[in-house]
């Protein structure tokens, strides 16, 4: 029973890590898109 519970706990922790990872990846992608917009498209606006 204890082993099974530990397995379950690992599963939950893995899931949490995966969530964090995915969250970071999404934030990174948003940040990069913003950065491109600012660098490339805003420049066009300046000109």
């Amino acid at each position, binding site marked *: 029973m204890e082993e099974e519970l530990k397995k379950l706990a690992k599963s939950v922790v893995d899931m949490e890590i995966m969530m*964090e990872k995915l969250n970071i990846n999404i934030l990174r992608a948003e940040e990069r*898109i913003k950065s491109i917009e600012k660098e490339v498209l805003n420049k066009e606006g300046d000109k």
Partner: protein
Amino acid sequence: MGVIDSKEIERANEAYEKVKEELYRLNEEVEAINSKISKIEEKKDIISRTSNFHEKNKLEQVLEGLKKELYSKKMEFNKTIKISNQIQKTFEDSGLKDFFKDYIGEHKRREIDENLQVVQKLKEEKSALYEEKNQKTSKRDQEIEKLKNEFEKNKSRFEKIRSFYESNQELYEHIEKNRKSEDFSGMISGMANVDSKLMFKIMDETAKSKNSDTLQVMDSLVRSLEVKYNDDLQKVNNKKEYSVKNEINKVIEINNQISEYISKVEYLKNKYHDFLKMDNYDPKDSENKISELKRELKEKEDLTRALDVEMEDIIIEENELLNFDMESNDAMVRIKAELDAKILAEERRIEEIKKEKEDILNKKFDLEFKNNNLDNNTEEIVVNSIENDNIELESKILELEEKNFRLRNKEVAHGEISELKIIEKEEYEAIEYGKIKDNMDNLFKDTIDEIENQALFVRESNFFIKMINTWRTNSVKKKAEKEAAAIEDAFNENDAKVNDLEEEITLLEAFAEPNFDCEKYIENLSDEKKDQVKEAYEAVKDLTKEDIDNKIKDKRNEYSDNLKDRFNIQKELLDNEYRRKYGIALPERYFENKLSDQLEKVNYNDYVEDVKEKNEDIKNRNEENEKIREEVSKEIESNQYKIDRYTVKLDRNNDIIEKLEEKKKEQDAERKNNKNDIDINSKKLENLDIELVNHIDDLGSLKDERDNLEVDLGRDKIDTNKEDLENRKLFNNSEKAKVNKEKEELKRLIEEEQRKIEKHKAYEEFKKTNVALRKFGMTDLEKSVLISNAFQMDFRDGFEK
């Protein structure tokens, strides 16, 4: 930890596996979006430089597409988080709560802390990368600009060098001449001459020819000097009057001088190179450029100020955010404490209700268990089973009784046979001895009677015959009368003999008995008889049983012989009597049939053997019957025993059945009571369930309130806002650094342009002075002084170096 079913754990695992799969899928898709962004980033510099509106529009569309895609992934991610929370809530309710709190909580916290550290690190890396990227971009831009200028410069320089080469033949010749005419000792002074001379020559010639690059010439000069130096050094080595040491020192000195000279020439070459540019240089260009650069500088200054203002705004926002963070945190802590207290109270009440429920359930289960046991109708089953046993017992008893009935019949049948067949041998034999004799006597009597009757008939019917034979019969009669006494004597003798033999045989048979008691045997006899018996007993008492039996056998044979004799004597007697009466012989036919059977019996031993055999058969049969009777009797007895036992059991079973029936009645009453209790407990449970559901709902609402507290207080965006502000600060700083660098660059360019103007002024002055010098025919040294003055610092500095 609460009571956890392994099935629940399995279900939880499955649910989490599904969530994980979904997360992996989403992560892959987000990574695909990131790789698309990377590709765009590779091209962004090119696109940013281009003024092609179409390209930028296209990029904008692509970015919008990616943003939408990312948004949809974000939504899916949020859904997955909700599912995960639901799963967690479900399993918290099912007893995994403590486990989640204690075990996973700790691991999760650790993992999240680690991940937060990674995020922080990544953030730092990101900032550093932004910084580096900005630096690299500006550096690269500068380099590109520089290379462009270099390219243009080299292009014109190439042209100039070519024309310079063509017009500098004289200079080469001069250098060559100098090199050849001087010996080593004179070389140094020559070099000094060459130094000033050549320099001025170069300057002069270049001024004349307006060559702008003397570099190649200088290089050639240096190289030729080095060649010459090497040649001379070789010569020095060859000269024996110089000590090697001195030579080396000198050479070193010369070497130093040459190095010094080379650096001088290098410096001059550069300066001169700049100086020569002045020909094509228009100061107005620099002035225009300066004003343009200043305008740009002003713009940058404005931008710096704008960035400063923005930074101030950011700091204000940051302070506001911090204040909000603190205030909302205080509020949150307070509200959370209140909610925690309420949640704790609700949880306690839930636990109490659960405990109460558990107690009632246990009670109910006990009662149900009791009733189930009572419902099992154990007593009825036992009663049925016993009744079945009874039926079986009764049928067995019946079967055994039938069997016994048959056996008794058998016993009776076998008993009857034995009674019919039992005949005592001795008795039989005793009867037979007299019987044979009597039979024989009776037979003779009957025969005589018959003969009498026949003789009468003959007498009456055959008168004539009688008359005729009278004379013959008289003689027969006389003869018969004479013989009659002898025959009668013989008969009496035989009779006495037979009687004696009978007595003897009877005595011997008595003696042959195993327990023969002589005294007892003789006690009722006459004295004479007693003596006879005693005498006879004395004669055989020492003999064996077998000897006595043999004696008996002999006597019996003797008896049989005498009986035969008696038969014949009786026949003679009869014949004699018939002859005496009727004067004729007795017809033989009277004896043929009637007495033949009796004669056969006369062999007494054979007869006795036959009787013995028959008696043996009877005896065997009787023994067999006895055995059968015994067996039957035993079986009957055993069956009876069984019947008795079965009957006892049957009675006992009936007692048990009676008791069980009573118990059943008691249990029915108990069951009824239990059922009532169960109903009461069920009602209690229902009420507790309703109460529990209400409390769980309240608890859920309180937990939701607590979970959503951050969102409700607007604290969920604090981190994002902080991060945004941090990013803005970083961006502002990097922008500022960039602008500062650009400003520095602009300042440098302005200074450069100003120096160019200054240089041009000097150049103009020099040109004027040179023309004047030429006019006045000044020496090279004088020119040198003047030029030096004209170049002022530039030249002086160069020589000093």
